[in-house]
């Protein structure tokens, strides 16, 4: 089966600084894959490049058998890609509810608002306050919830557990597992290693803007040494 997301020799730049040096990645429909790596190796950059936010890019980037390089940013989502940015991107001038309803729905199979509120009761309680008045963790919840509504085929999550209380981290883990059951594909960037190993099918290890190695969750035990070296886990 062809990969849903097929990346070959992807390069990306910030102005003159070359950050991604030929990334290769193939993710099949329904997989949950975690991208690991130290600070500053280019994980966020990879997600932003896939999403089309970074336009200085070269290489092959195919999603659902379509060449994504020429697709303008505002059409990327319509092809079924959803993004939760690292800095969360909550809009200060919008209420929680407005933030939640902001991204246009792509497909019918997204979560309903009620389901979301059940998942994150805090959001329900604070639904009328303005976006950035939320606590850091609440903002993180909102950022995730917002994308769950749209019904995308593939989620790009950048450190979704940062700043969340352990209970919530667990709950998000449950959500990811449920998403997997629904057949949704996830590419996850994570520092929280325990969390990542609970939800992921496969890992990519990144260093210096390149994929260093790749292994399924079953090999995790054997790879601990390598991880230790690269990540300091």
């Amino acid at each position: 089966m062809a990969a849903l997301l097929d990346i070959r020799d992807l390069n990306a730049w910030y102005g003159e600084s070359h950050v991604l040096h030929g990334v290769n990645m193939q993710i099949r429909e329904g997989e949950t894959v975690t991208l690991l790596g130290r600070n500053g190796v280019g994980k966020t950059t990879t997600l932003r490049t896939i999403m089309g936010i970074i336009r200085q890019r070269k290489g092959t980037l195919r999603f659902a058998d379509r060449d994504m390089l020429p697709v303008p940013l505002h059409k990327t989502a319509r092809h079924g890609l959803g993004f939760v940015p690292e800095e969360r991107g909550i809009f200060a001038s919008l209420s929680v509810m407005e933030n939640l309803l902001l991204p246009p729905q792509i497909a019918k199979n997204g979560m309903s608002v009620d389901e979301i509120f059940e998942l994150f009761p805090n959001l329900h309680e604070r639904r009328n306050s303005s976006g950035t008045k939320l606590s850091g963790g609440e903002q993180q919840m909102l950022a995730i919830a917002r994308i769950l509504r749209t019904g995308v085929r593939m989620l790009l999550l950048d450190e979704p557990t940062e700043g969340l209380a352990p209970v919530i981290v667990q709950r998000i883990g449950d959500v990811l597992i449920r998403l997997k059951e629904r057949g949704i594909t996830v590419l996850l960037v994570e520092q929280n290693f325990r969390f990542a190993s609970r939800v992921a099918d496969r890992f990519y290890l990144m260093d210096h803007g390149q994929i260093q190695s790749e292994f399924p969750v079953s090999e995790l035990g054997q790879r601990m040494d390598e991880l230790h070296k690269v990540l300091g886990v």
Partner: protein
Amino acid sequence: MLASASPVTAHAVLSARGLTRRFGGFLAVNNVDIDVYQGEIHALIGPNGAGKTTVFNLLTKFLQPTSGRISLMRQDITATPADRVARMGLVRSFQISAVFPHLTVLDNVRVALQRPNGLAHQFWRPMSALDQLTGKAEGLLATVGLTRERDALAADLSYGRKRVLEIATTLALDPKVLLLDEPLAGMGQEDIATIAGLIRNVARTRAVLMVEHNLSVVADICDRVTVLQRGEILAAGDYETVSRDPQVRTAYMGREED
């Protein structure tokens, strides 16, 4: 505890009584008492939205409490403006990283060093007056492991490195009391170990109050833990005691294995 404040504990460096803050109809912090002692690391934990950052904002006077009293080294600072509080030696870091993006990493630290070294108001002296701070700044960068990025613009650092830089500027002020809001969030494992060690070092001669969701670090380095929930104190004590509290477990920690 009642709204009428009990007397402020004498030997606490930073202490608050009956701290309360309302946002419109929403009670974000409700009647919180907290004491931070010299030489200790005190953790403030709790579910998201419990009011931890708000407590920080109140203690540092970035927000004015609706009621309650705060004292810093036996001085009442309930009505003192934020910048004065900072000058008195109570310094905070931010949950969402706060650096000066278009200054270099070195200058970020030097700006922080200026005030404690009496170089804040001089508009008649040349910039080279700041050169005397360079050595100190470089030393700080070395402790946190930012030497390589010395001349980079803060804006170009990756997220995790920005957090490290923020810790460095905070330490530059040589504060007596340090309030750290999730200092380790977004950091990679290798930095977590370094910075946690650094915090422990720093705390030997100072008082530290920190918010952190990384419980292994909390268990590791914190002497005392206060758990906040819905703006109120749910439990307090050492980590062992608190982590066994069933209420804390359901509200915050969740299942053991994670």
